[in-house]
């Protein structure tokens, strides 16, 4: 059966090739897409790209997007509108005979597509596309692209694109055997100016045929780049630390409020974060089904909802359980632990035990290059977000009456009560505020972590460490605590590894608490002692 099918396919292929024998290289190459072999597809891409046929770009782009279909030995392009056109002729094709299948891709084919599109789109009117094309040529180092590259450089006026084109040319020249040494030396120069990891890779891996003076120049340039990269590496690690610190800050800041105000050890805090993440999931599900256009704003929509969901669960908890346990912090700890188990299992029952998919809006993907550092947009967003939450909370606590009450209750519960502040109401609101903040932390964490019932568990110990380290009852302490732990963690990681670094940090915190049992920014005075 299978043998027969293979035979038939070969026969059809032969037939196709025979019929195309009279045509040009483009028409000759097309049938190779039908053979369902990656090697043939790869070769076909090269041939189509080199053919100069006006349909070449269409074919290759369609291939990339899975819109290049084959059936009964012929190749078709499906337009975005759904119309079919015959790739060989460019004519519309209404009713295909038999089943059409997309041409299959693998990484090898994708690389070929990228390289082909690179040299084909170097002159595209869209600057972004030209930039992409230049990068693709840089990666492929395809000598055949050199003439196109020279032409493009001559025309290019946009500086970033021109730079990219020049580096691409330098990369090709360096690896090209017959390029004159002077050109190669200029190439070394260009790459040294680019001064990043990729340039370093090129300079330190010269082909064996490189002339000695080029090798010497490249060696020197490579040393320079290494020094620069090492310098930036320190900043990069600090950045990782800040972004980890922001995650910790988000997770811990709600806890700082509940722990600081009510001395309530809320072990279910992590589950509030989880509720926030699941709210995000629900919001995205709704948006996907009803308002797909709003997807980019899904996280912004999720923020207030997550605050409300987690916050109201928090108020509910406070009113039904925690309020009966004030003054008994250890009992609160046990009860909230029980609540966390119930919430976890509840979510597991409703949403299932597996991870839920939360998408990343387009504006949060990609990276920003600063010097030799690469800052990913989602991390930037989280850092900015964490600091904004911190600032807003600080303002709320400083300038609203709720904040005033909360601070009063934090400092002296009894006195605040005797001054007519309804402490029980302040407690409920503060607990709701803390939980709500945990909920919006969940929105952010859904972008970098699993959305599963276990989400909160991963953060609870870390958040307690942050709060205890920073000192209770002081938001600044939490900020400093989170950043210190985040940065220390990331500076340790390259040397000690992820696990040992974390263990070392935990031990450091244990020792630290013993030195300063009330944390970095402890409240002093008699009130605390009572």
């Amino acid at each position, binding site marked *: 059966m299978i043998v027969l099918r293979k035979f038939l396919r070969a026969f059809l292929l032969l037939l196709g090739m025979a019929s195309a024998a009279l045509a040009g290289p483009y028409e000759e190459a097309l049938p190779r897409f039908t053979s369902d072999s990656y090697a043939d597809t790869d070769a076909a891409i090269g041939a189509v790209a080199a053919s100069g046929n006006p349909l070449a770009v269409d074919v290759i782009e369609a291939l990339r997007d899975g819109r290049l279909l084959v059936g009964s030995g012929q190749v078709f392009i499906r337009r975005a509108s759904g119309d079919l056109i015959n790739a060989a002729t460019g004519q519309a094709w209404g009713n295909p005979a038999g089943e059409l299948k997309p041409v299959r891709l693998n990484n090898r084919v994708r690389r070929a597509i990228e390289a082909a599109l690179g040299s084909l789109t170097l002159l595209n009117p869209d600057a972004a596309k030209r930039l992409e094309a230049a990068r693709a040529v840089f990666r492929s180092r395809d000598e055949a692209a050199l003439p196109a590259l020279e032409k493009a450089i001559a025309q290019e006026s946009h500086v970033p694109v021109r730079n990219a084109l020049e580096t691409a040319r330098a990369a090709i020249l360096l690896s090209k055997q017959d390029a004159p040494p002077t050109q190669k030396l200029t190439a070394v120069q260009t790459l040294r100016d680019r001064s990043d990891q990729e340039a370093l890779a090129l300079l330190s891996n010269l082909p064996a045929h490189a002339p000695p003076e080029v090798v010497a120049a490249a060696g020197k340039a490579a040393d320079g780049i290494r020094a620069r990269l090492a310098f930036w590496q320190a900043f990069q690690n600090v950045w990782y630390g800040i972004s980890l610190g922001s995650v910790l800050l988000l997770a811990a800041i709600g806890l700082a409020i509940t722990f600081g105000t009510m001395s309530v050890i809320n072990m279910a805090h992590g589950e509030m974060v989880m509720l926030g993440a699941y709210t995000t999931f629900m919001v995205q599900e709704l948006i996907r089904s009803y308002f797909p256009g709003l997807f980019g704003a899904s996280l912004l929509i999720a923020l207030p909802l997550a605050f409300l969901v987690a916050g109201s669960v928090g108020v509910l908890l406070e009113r039904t359980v925690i309020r*009966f346990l004030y003054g008994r912090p250890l009992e609160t700890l046990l009860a909230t632990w*029980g609540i966390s188990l119930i919430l976890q*299992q*509840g979510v*597991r029952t409703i949403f299932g035990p597996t991870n839920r998919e939360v998408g990343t809006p387009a504006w949060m993907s990609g990276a920003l290059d600063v010097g030799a550092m690469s800052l990913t947009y989602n991390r930037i967003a989280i850092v900015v977000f964490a600091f904004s939450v911190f600032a807003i909370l600080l303002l709320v606590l400083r300038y609203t009456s709720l904040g005033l009450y909360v601070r009063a209750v934090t400092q002296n519960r009894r006195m605040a009560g005797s001054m007519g502040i309804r402490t029980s109401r302040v407690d409920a609101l503060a607990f709701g505020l803390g939980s709500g903040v945990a909920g919006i932390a969940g929105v952010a964490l859904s972008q970098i972590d699993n959305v599963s019932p276990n989400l909160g568990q991963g953060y609870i110990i870390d958040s*307690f*460490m942050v709060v205890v380290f920073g000192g209770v009852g002081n938001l600044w302490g939490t900020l400093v605590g989170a950043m210190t732990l985040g940065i220390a963690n990331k500076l340790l990681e390259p040397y000690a590894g992820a696990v040992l670094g974390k*263990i070392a940090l*935990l031990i450091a915190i*244990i020792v630290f608490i013993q030195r300063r049992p009330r944390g970095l920014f402890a409240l002093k005075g008699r009130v605390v002692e009572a």
Partner: protein
Amino acid sequence: MRTQYLFDRQTVLVLSILAAAAILVPAMNGLVPPGSALHLSDHLVPLLGKYVCLALLALSVDLIWGFCGILSLGHGAFFALGGYAMGMYLMRQIGPRGAYADPILPDFMVFLNWKELPWFWHGFDWFPFAALMVLLVPGALALVFGWFAFRSRVTGVYFSIITQAMTFALMLAFFRNDMGLGGNNGLTDFKEVLGFPVQAGSTRVVLFVLSVLVLAGGYLLCRWVVGSTFGKVLVAVRDAESRTRFLGYRVEHYKLAVFTLSAMLAGVAGALYVPQVGIINPSEFAPANSIEVVIWVAVGGRGTLAGAILGALLVNAGKTWFTAALPEFWLFALGGLFVFVTLFMPRGILGAAGDLWERSSRRLRTRRSPQPFTQAAE
């Protein structure tokens, strides 16, 4: 006067029940024919043995929490360390019977290309040394950790949180394969203990009886400790720590002493647990496990010793039943139990029962030194 405490009615009852278990379980398993309704099937013996070990762990937590107000949320760490010490002995007993037939190295070291035994494995082939380590390793950790913590007066929730951090750090450390303790797989595939095959039914019965006897011994030890003036100081620390200090007691020394003793008890519990369940791995260090132990104590009745044993047995039997019958509801039940007990039964089953009893017959109010607990000390 102290002997009067030691053998009060509660103690006599606990000891009688334990003695009955030590006699009945082997009898029902070995003497009663399998067809009979009274026969105890083979697989229940190690199960009951496991409960008994966990009861000993609960007892050790009650000693510090119930009587000294120290809430350790990392007691599972001491339990696991004791278990590892025993596990290392059992690993060494495998000898050349491992898959790679290496006379010295355990299998996991062979396939990770270890060439020689790490230094800390030496001596564990000798049982008395291993037994000593079962006590010393948890004891030493408790001593060092406690010395730092109590000296600088880390109390209450702060102490609880850093004990969590301690067991979490240990869990991460033991998960590392580079530790040389088997990583995630831990220590398993034991062959024999003191020359008796671990898997044999008779060995299991003996281990069960031994566990019961150790539990009884542990109970008596705790009773004696809390009945002594030392125990009164502990309760004093629990209820009014700074008052105790102004009376001239070195509170930190008391806490350290009882914390270390309790850690050793937990270590012994772990050591008895491992040969009966056949495996020790880092998940025993999981912070959640240690928190669960606390709830056993709370359910049974904090500060009553007997309550800790009762709570451990009840909750674990419940867990066995739930995970078989209604697996999805186990966490709801456990979580609900935490909330219910803290809200409505702060003194646990024994405490509540004691209240009932006291209300119905005030005359029984004779002096009783280690009092059940009514309110949290902070």
